[in-house]
C-alpha cells in the first residue's frame, strides 16, 4: 500500500518544506538531498496527498528526450489525420501541479536547462519541427537526490525556493523500519483522518496567506543574513520572504514572527551559504569581487542606510538590526545544523564546476538525446527520425520522381531527411598528479599524492574521471601511472616509489603536457594538473634529452618553465599547485608557478590526502 505523508516518521524538515510549498506554490519547489536506499522518494510522492484534489503530479523520467520534455508534433496522429497534431511535453503536463524528479542530480544538463527555462518563464516555448507554440508550464518542482551521485546544478537550485539541508535526519534508513512498524499497527481510517486534517490545515493557510504581513525591518534582517552568508544573487531574497510568510500562514498568524524567519533562513539561505559568518577561514574562499563591504560591521552599513531610511527611527533600527540578525542566524544555525556545513557549501561550489566538467554533447557515445540534421558519413544515422522526416514527403516526391522519369523506389529519401544521433556523455576529467620526489620531504609528499589518487579513483565512476601520476626526481620525470580508472592498478604501480635527488620540474611539465595531449586524442577534453611541489626546479629540460648537457643558469630555467606553462595553459589545461613545504623554507616559488600556469595555489602543510582531493575538485 501507499505510505501517506503523515505516516512518514522523521524527515521533519523535509515535511515542513513541502508544507510551505503547498501553501505558497510561488516558492518554486523543494529539493531534498538524502542517502541512497532511504526511500527518499516516498515523501515526495506522498506530497500529492496534501495538495488540493486534482492537482497534477507528473514524474519526470531521467532518460527523457528533448521532444518528450518540451513537446512537439505528434507525427503518428499528424500523418493519420492530415492536420498537425501537437503533443504536449512533460513540462506543460505538470502545469498547475507538481513536477517530480527523482535523482535530480543525475538529470542531464540539457534537460536541466529546459526545466530552468520553463521555471523562469512559467511556460514552455516550443520552437520545434515547424511548430511554434507557447504552452503554459507553471509548476512546483520537487526533486530528491543522493549527494554522493553528484550535486544539482546551481542555476537550477537558484530557481527553486527551498533546499532541505542535508543532515543525519534525512538519512532515515533506520526510520524506514519505524514506518513499517507503524504502518502495521495503524488502520487506514486514522491515516485518512490525519491526511484530511493536514489538507484542511494547508487550505486554511492558503486562505490566510494574503493576510500575512512582514515588516521592512524583518525583510532587511533576512537580506542582511543572506549577505553575511555570502549567498549569490538577489532572487533568493524573495524566496526567503515568501517562506517566512508561508510559515506564518501555516500557524494562522497575520504577522511574521521570529520562528518563521528562522525557518526561512534554515530552508532557503543556509543551504546556499558560501561561508559562515563566524568563521574567517570560509571567507577566504570567496572571490574578492563578491566580498561584501562589511561582515556585520556597522560602519559599512551606515554608509548605505541613509540613502533609503531617512528618519531617526530607522537609524535606531540600524543599531539593533545586526544583533538581531546575528541572534537569528546563530539560532537557526544551531538548530540541528550538521557539523559539516562548510563541507556542504564547499560541495555547492564544487557542483558549479561539476556542471561544466560533467557532460559534453558529442556524436559518438553516451546517451542518445536528440536527432538532428547532419552529415551521414561521419555520424551515426538515427533511422527512425530519418524515416519520420521523410514520410510526409513521399507523395509529392513520388510525383516529382515520376515526372523526371526516374525508376520507382519504395522509399524516397533525400539528404535533407537524414538525421544523425547526438549523444550526451559524462566525459570526466583527467587529473594528472605531478609529484616532486626530490628532497627530504619527498616521502611525505608521495604518500599524500597516493592517498589523493586512491581517493579520487574511488569516486571516479561518478564523473568518469581518470587519474595519472608523474613523479620527478634526479634528471627527469617519469610517468608512474598512465591515465587510469583502476584503483587496483594505481595501488600496484605506486607501491614502490624512489625518492631523492634533483628537481626536474620542466621535465615533469613537459611529460604532463604530452600525457594531456594523448588523452585529448582519446576524447578526454578536461584535464587538470595537480602539482605537489615547492616549485623550485633546478634541472633543465635539456638534461632530459641529453644527460651530458651543461647545467643551465637560473634565468634560463625560469624561462623554460614559463614557456612550457604558457603552452600548457593555452591548451586549456587547468592547474593547481599544492605547496606542502613548511613556511619558513618557502621562497615563494610555488605561488609563482601557479601564476604562470594560470592556476591556483594552495598552501597545505601536512596536507591530508582528502584536502588535496578537495582542492582539486573545488577548482
Amino acid at each position, binding site marked *: 500500500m501507499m505510505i501517506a505523508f503523515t505516516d512518514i516518521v522523521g524527515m521533519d524538515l523535509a515535511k515542513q518544506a513541502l508544507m510551505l510549498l503547498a501553501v505558497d506554490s510561488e516558492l518554486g519547489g523543494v529539493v531534498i538531498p538524502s542517502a541512497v536506499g532511504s526511500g527518499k522518494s516516498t515523501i515526495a510522492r506522498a506530497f500529492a496527498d496534501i495538495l488540493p484534489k486534482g492537482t497534477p503530479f507528473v514524474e519526470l523520467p531521467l532518460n527523457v528526450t528533448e521532444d518528450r520534455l518540451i513537446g512537439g508534433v505528434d507525427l503518428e496522429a499528424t500523418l493519420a489525420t*492530415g492536420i498537425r497534431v501537437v503533443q504536449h511535453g512533460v513540462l506543460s503536463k505538470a502545469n498547475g501541479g507538481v513536477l517530480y524528479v527523482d535523482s535530480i542530480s543525475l538529470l542531464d544538463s540539457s534537460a536541466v536547462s529546459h526545466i530552468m527555462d520553463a521555471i523562469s518563464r512559467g511556460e514552455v516555448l516550443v*520552437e520545434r519541427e515547424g511548430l511554434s507554440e507557447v504552452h503554459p508550464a507553471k509548476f512546483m518542482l520537487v526533486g530528491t537526490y543522493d549527494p554522493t551521485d553528484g550535486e544539482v546544478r546551481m542555476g537550477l537550485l537558484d530557481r527553486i525556493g527551498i533546499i532541505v539541508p542535508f543532515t543525519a535526519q534525512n538519512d532515515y534508513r533506520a526510520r524506514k523500519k519505524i514506518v513499517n512498524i507503524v504502518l502495521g499497527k495503524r488502520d487506514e481510517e486514522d491515516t485518512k483522518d490525519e491526511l484530511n486534517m493536514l489538507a484542511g490545515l494547508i487550505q486554511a493557510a492558503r486562505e490566510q496567506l494574503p493576510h500575512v504581513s512582514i515588516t521592512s525591518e524583518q525583510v532587511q534582517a533576512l537580506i542582511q543574513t543572506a549577505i553575511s552568508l555570502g549567498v549569490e544573487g538577489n532572487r533568493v531574497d524573495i524566496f526567503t520572504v515568501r517562506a517566512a510568510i508561508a510559515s506564518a500562514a501555516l500557524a494562522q498568524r497575520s504577522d511574521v514572527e521570529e520562528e518563521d524567519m528562522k525557518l526561512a533562513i534554515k530552508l532557503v539561505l543556509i543551504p546556499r551559504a558560501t561561508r559562515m559568518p563566524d568563521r574567517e577561514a570560509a571567507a577566504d574562499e570567496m572571490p574578492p569581487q563578491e566580498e561584501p563591504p562589511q561582515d556585520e560591521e556597522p560602519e559599512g552599513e551606515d554608509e548605505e542606510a541613509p540613502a533609503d531610511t531617512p528618519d531617526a527611527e530607522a537609524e535606531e533600527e540600524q543599531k539593533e538590526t545586526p544583533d538581531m540578525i546575528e541572534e537569528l542566524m546563530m539560532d537557526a544555525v544551531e538548530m540541528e545544523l550538521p557539523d559539516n556545513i562548510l563541507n556542504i557549501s564547499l560541495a555547492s561550489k564544487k557542483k558549479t564546476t561539476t556542471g561544466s566538467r560533467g557532460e559534453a554533447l558529442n556524436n559518438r557515445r553516451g546517451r542518445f538525446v536528440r536527432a538532428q540534421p547532419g552529415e551521414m558519413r561521419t555520424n551515426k544515422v538515427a533511422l527512425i527520425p530519418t524515416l519520420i522526416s521523410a514520410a510526409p514527403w513521399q507523395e509529392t516526391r513520388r510525383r516529382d520522381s515520376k515526372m523526371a522519369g526516374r525508376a520507382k523506389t519504395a522509399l524516397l529519401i533525400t539528404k535533407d531527411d537524414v538525421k544523425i544521433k547526438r549523444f550526451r556523455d559524462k566525459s570526466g576529467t583527467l587529473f594528472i598528479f605531478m609529484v616532486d620526489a626530490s628532497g627530504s620531504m619527498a616521502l611525505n609528499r608521495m604518500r599524500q599524492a597516493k592517498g589523493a589518487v586512491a581517493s579520487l579513483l574511488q569516486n571516479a565512476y561518478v564523473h568518469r574521471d581518470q587519474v595519472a601520476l608523474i613523479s620527478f626526481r634526479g634528471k627527469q620525470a617519469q610517468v608512474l601511472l598512465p591515465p587510469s580508472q583502476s584503483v587496483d592498478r594505481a595501488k600496484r604501480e605506486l607501491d614502490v616509489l624512489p625518492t631523492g635527488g634533483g628537481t626536474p620540474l620542466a621535465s615533469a611539465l613537459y611529460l604532463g603536457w604530452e600525457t594531456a595531449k594523448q588523452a585529448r586524442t582519446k576524447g578526454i577534453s578536461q584535464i587538470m594538473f595537480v602539482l605537489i611541489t615547492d616549485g623550485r626546479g633546478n634541472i633543465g629540460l635539456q638534461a632530459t634529452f641529453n644527460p651530458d648537457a651543461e647545467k643551465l643558469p637560473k634565468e634560463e630555467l625560469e624561462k623554460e618553465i614559463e614557456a612550457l606553462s604558457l603552452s600548457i595553459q593555452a591548451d586549456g589545461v587547468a592547474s593547481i599547485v599544492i605547496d606542502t613545504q613548511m613556511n619558513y623554507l618557502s621562497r615563494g616559488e610555488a605561488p609563482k608557478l601557479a601564476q604562470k600556469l594560470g592556476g591556483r595555489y594552495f598552501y597545505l602543510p601536512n596536507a591530508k590526502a582528502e584536502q588535496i582531493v578537495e582542492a582539486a575538485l573545488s577548482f
Partner: protein
Amino acid sequence: MSQTETAAKKTAAKKTGAVKVKADATVTTAPEATKAAKPAAKKKSGLAFPFTAIVGQEEMKLSLILNIIDPRIGGVLVMGHRGTGKSTTVRALAEVLPLIERVEGDTYNRTLEQYLEAEDGKKGAKALDPASIRTEKIPVPVVDLPLGATEDRVCGTIDIEQALTSGVKAFEPGLLAQANRGFLYIDEVNLLDDHLVDVLLDVAASGKNVVEREGISIRHPARFVLVGSGNPEEGELRPQLLDRFGLHARIITILDIAKRVDIVKRRREFDEDPDAFMKKYNREQLKLQKKIQQAKDLLPEVTMTDAVLTDIARLCMNLGIDGHRGELTITRTAYAHAAFLGETVVTMKHVKEIAGLCLRHRLRKDPLETLDAGEKIDRELAKVLGEAEAV
C-alpha cells in the same frame, strides 16, 4: 537581386504543372497573398515586469537602451551571477521599444523599399504598384530563442501541414525571419548547442538567412540585435560568438541592503497585482520610451571631433585590441550614448562611460595579467585622457 526565389523547382513545375510550387506567401509576389501570411505575432505571455521598475544593474540597462538607439552597435552579452534579474530585464525591454514601419503583414518585417526591391525584380511577376501596398507600425520585435529550438524552426522550413493536406510546398518562416529588424534574445546563451551557434554566426555575419529544403531555395533578410545572457560558471561561450556581441555587460549580486529591500517590495507588489503595478510605472515607461525615440531622432545630428576619434584609436591600440571592431563599436556606442543624454557632440566623457562595455571581451587574454579587464581599460583610458589633456 531578388532576395527570395523559387528557382530550383521551376523545371519540375513546368513539365506537368501538377506540383504547385508555392514558397512562402510573400514569395508569390501578389500583395493579397501577403495578407494570408502569419503576422510575426508577438507571443502573448503574462505581463512582463516593467523595465523602469528594475532596481540597479545600470550597466545592463544602459547597454540595452544604447542598442535600441543604434542597432548597429551589435547587441549585448549580459553575463553574471545567478538570480540578478538578467532575463527579467531583457524581457522587460519589449515594453519600452519604439515603433517601426513595415509592409502590412510582412513576415520579414520589411520596409516598403526593401519589400519592393525584393519582390519587384522577380522574374515573371507583375510589376508592383507601391501605392497599393499598405504599411503598418509595429513595436520593434523581440524574439525569444529557447535552448530547445530545432534548426528548422530557427531558420524556417517547409510547412508540413500544407504539404500533407494540399501537396503544396510552402515556406514557413522561422524565428530568424521574425527577428528581422528586431531583437533576438537567447537566455543561457553559453549553453546553446553548437549547431545553432553555427547557424547564428552565419546569419549574423551576412544579415541573410538561406534555406534550401525540398528543392525550394529561400533567402530572406535577417538583421537583428543579438542579446544573450548567462552565468559564466555554467559554461564558456565560443570565442567567435563572443566576438559577435557589440557590448559586454557584467552583472553582480547587489549588496546594498536598501536596494535589495526595494527589489523584494516591488516584486511582491507586482506579484500581488500586476495590473496596478504596471499602471504605477506607466508614466515612467512612456517617458523612457519617448526619451529613446528622441535619442533615435537626434542620432543623425550627433558629431564627433577627430581628436576624440584619435583618442579612441589610441586607447584600442594601447590595449592591443585586434582588428577594428573595437574602435567601431566604441564610436557607435558613444554616439548613441551622447544622443541618449540629449547631446549632439561626443566627448571623451561619453567614451569613458562606455569603453568598458565595448572592450571588456575584446582584450587579448594574457595569462600573466593579474589585472581585471575593466581595471585595465580604466587605466589605459586614464593614460589616454591624461595625454589628451596635455595636448
